[in-house]
């Protein structure tokens, strides 16, 4: 394994240093204004969409690195990870008493939150008025009934106390001594609320609002989720609010302990981190450029993303030639001066198509390079954006001698293309051979069905790219005619595709006015090896559920007239 610093590291955010998070994060005001607020917010996005980075960036630990003004404590972000060894403990299942299960689950959750608060604040210098605050130590001792260790600062003493409690209660639980546990269990109101109140009695924190940044809440056990939801229903949000990151809002339960349900708009807002559009002028396109350029700065490169990842000159020349030829066609088709928009649309739809159709007879794959291509290949997921960049940089390093490592100023287009095609090939290999063992609750049949489905979708999209008149570059689809039977067979399969990050679910306008529908975007990294145009177009193919299921079973999609199976939805913000 190499030890050089790759600026496009795409590991989970929690493995990155806080300094790195602070340096490379691109702040999106659309999200920040909700996070730095007193509202309860759910941040929803699949793996790699930037949930953890967003929460970490808003944590006190990272914001301190920005040298915020010592008096700027209006929002104090406390990062609370849920994918921890403590959260995964399941001994509560050994007890029949539902009430006890709730007690155990809440106890461990609040210990984790309290520790995160104490740890976050303990790192502040003495000027914040916490480190040598004897009053705070006395208050915590009194309120928590805790025998806090003397000789250390109050929050460090609190952390030690919490650690001791956590250790004690885990030992009790592991040995099934539940009576002892029941007596000493903490709750939100017996631990977190008094703790926050005590901190807010310190002068500099008296107006502070605590943002409890709960990451990966989908990893909480069912009782913890219910408990967390119940906290969201608290009316008084003057001193704290929750910002909760979950991978999927559809499968996350919004039930509370009492059996009620928290309501969007009333109890919380949802911020969707999923990005349906990837072109250069889209929000994601701009963010992608910002992310890459910030990362380039970390290796001393001042180039733009487009300069660092240039497209193939031949490809771009060919595309331009095809556009010109198509423009000439458009003039013949729509000669009237008032048909300018029609001509533009025609070139948009068929310019790139001409390139792929003219080269169809050639055996080799087209080149896949250029920052725009990389952005489209990401399918709107930040980790998917960074991943090929990481391996391109890695390929450059492994091909370079040590002395030239520091002088990588550009990734040649042929390297980009090789890496993208290789990653595409690997993704298919993974789908065909390893999905079954890499994903829980995925049977061999499921993985074969998914492989068939994507394979057949590839055939369909390629057929359309080379033959269809209407929306030939569509590489997304919607499903019509779902029956109860398909709900039992097809929907679980699509969900496995989603969990495997092979398929992204998006919401868009349906044909019926005012209605919205879910449509599906296969991970675009699947398509380079199939010779498809990863740029796609703003349209989706409408497929019948029966045909999709048959494709999963291995059948090809029927050759229906293009006008019947394509819904040409052009999205305003992409034009």
């Amino acid at each position: 394994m190499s030890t050089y610093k790759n600026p496009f590291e795409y590991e989970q955010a929690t493995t990155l240093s806080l300094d790195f998070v602070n340096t490379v994060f691109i702040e999106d005001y659309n999200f920040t204004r909700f996070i730095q607020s007193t509202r309860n917010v759910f941040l929803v996005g699949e793996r790699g969409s930037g949930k953890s980075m967003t929460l970490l960036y808003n944590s006190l630990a990272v914001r301190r690195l920005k040298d915020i003004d010592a008096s700027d404590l209006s929002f104090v972000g406390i990062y609370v990870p849920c994918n921890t060894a403590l959260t995964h403990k399941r001994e509560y299942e050994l007890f029949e008493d539902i009430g006890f299960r709730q007690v155990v689950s809440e106890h461990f959750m609040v210990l984790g939150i309290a520790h995160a608060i104490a740890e976050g604040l303990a790192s502040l210098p003495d000027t914040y008025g916490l480190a040598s605050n004897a009053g705070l130590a006395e208050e915590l001792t009194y309120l928590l009934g805790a025998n806090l260790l003397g000789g250390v600062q109050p929050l460090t003493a609190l952390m030690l106390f919490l650690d001791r409690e956590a250790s004690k209660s885990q030992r009790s639980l592991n040995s099934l001594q539940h009576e002892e546990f029941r007596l000493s269990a903490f709750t939100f109101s017996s631990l977190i609320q008094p703790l926050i109140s005590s901190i807010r009695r310190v002068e500099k924190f008296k107006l502070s609002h605590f943002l409890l940044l709960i990451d990966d809440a989908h990893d909480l056990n069912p009782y913890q989720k219910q408990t967390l939801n119940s906290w969201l229903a608290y009316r008084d949000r003057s001193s704290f609010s929750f910002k909760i990151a979950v991978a999927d809002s559809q499968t996350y339960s919004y039930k509370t302990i009492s059996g009620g349900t928290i309501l969007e708009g009333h109890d919380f807002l949802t911020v969707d981190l999923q990005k349906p559009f990837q072109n250069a002028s889209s929000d994601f396109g701009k963010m992608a450029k910002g992310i890459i350029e910030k990362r380039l700065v970390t290796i001393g490169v001042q180039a733009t993303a487009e300069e660092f990842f240039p497209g193939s000159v031949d490809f771009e020349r060919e595309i331009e030639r095809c556009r010109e030829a198509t423009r000439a066609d458009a003039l013949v088709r729509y000669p009237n001066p008032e048909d300018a928009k029609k001509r533009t649309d025609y070139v948009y739809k068929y310019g790139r198509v001409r390139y792929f159709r003219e080269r169809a007879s050639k055996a080799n794959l087209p080149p896949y390079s250029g920052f725009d291509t990389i952005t489209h290949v990401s399918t709107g997921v930040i980790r998917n954006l960074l991943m090929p960049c990481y391996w391109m940089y890695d390929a450059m390093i492994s091909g370079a001698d040590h002395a030239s490592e520091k002088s990588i100023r550009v990734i040649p287009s042929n390297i980009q293309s090789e890496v993208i095609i290789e990653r595409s090939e690997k993704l298919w290999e993974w789908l065909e051979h390893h999905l079954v063992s890499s994903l829980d609750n995925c049977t061999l049949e499921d993985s074969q069905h998914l492989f068939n489905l994507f394979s057949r979708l590839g055939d369909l999209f390629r057929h359309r790219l080379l033959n269809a008149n209407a929306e030939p570059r569509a590489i997304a689809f919607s499903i019509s005619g779902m029956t109860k039977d398909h709900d039992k067979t097809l929907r679980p399969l699509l969900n496995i595709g989603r969990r495997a990050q092979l398929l992204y679910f998006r919401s868009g306008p349906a044909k019926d006015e005012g209605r919205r529908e879910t449509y599906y975007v296969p991970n675009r990294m699947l398509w380079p090896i199939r010779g498809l145009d990863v740029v796609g177009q703003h349209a989706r193919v409408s497929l019948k559920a029966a045909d999709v299921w048959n494709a999963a079973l291995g059948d090809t999609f029927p050759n229906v007239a293009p006008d019947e199976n394509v819904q040409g939805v052009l999205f305003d913000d992409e034009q």
Partner: protein
Amino acid sequence: MTMNSDALVCVAGWEERFAAGLKLDVDRFHPAEIVMIVFQEFKEETQANRLAVVSYAAENGIVCRELSVRREPREVWDTLRSDFTNSAWFQKRVVLDISTMPREVIWWSLSFLLEAGCELRYVYHRPQSYSSEWLTRDTARPRLVYQHSGIAKLGKPTALLLLNGFDTERAEQMIQFFEPRLLLVGLQHGKQFGNEERNLKRGERFGELIRNIKTFEIDAYSTDHGFSAIVEQVKPLLPDYNIIAASLGPKTSAIAMFRVITEFPEVALAYAPSRQFNIGYSSGIGDSIEGLVEARLLDREVQN
């Protein structure tokens, strides 16, 4: 050399080595009783072997008792606890045949029977060969093992320790599920069953999921089954990490792992059960490995 024992505990399997191994066990340990844990989901697949074992036991005047259970963790735990904490087990000489025993069953059996004051031996019969095709698949979500889920420290990152043999597809899921800050991989020493090639391929795939990987060699077939090698890795990490450990390789490493968690109860055991097994998982029966479980290990846990 033969010896007498009060009971032999095993999990019914369909592999050749199960019935053949039980015969060797009977001849070697002369148990007064065989307790055969039977998973209801695999009753048909194990029927022929079970009949063979019952018949051989009867020929030798041994009582054979079946503990039928669904392969659900809570039900298995309940069943084992309810049976093994019965006073009838108090200070008995017990042999565990772990050849076809899932790790959770090994760990719970060891802890319940040690708690009952039993003198515990284990025996493992290696197969002659493994299938060159897939071994297991359709894995359920990874989980921490009841009562062996460690003592997690607040605010510390996770280190995942994987002891890998070649039935390692579950490793990827473990990495994705626990998202560790550090991955420690114990690789089985030696060239048997194509280990080297498999280890190389595995390393490439793990590298896609996590950068911070440390590998070390263990020999699960040595006398301590890799215990010392594991301790050497685990001990320095304890102050800074919550360690979650999984034994995915040679079955005997589960014994070493049990020793590790009794020495270091902070370490959690994880398990990811497969729900589909290749019926031709292995063939034949090879060498047998056996050992004595030291009762002092549990005393230490109780004192803590």
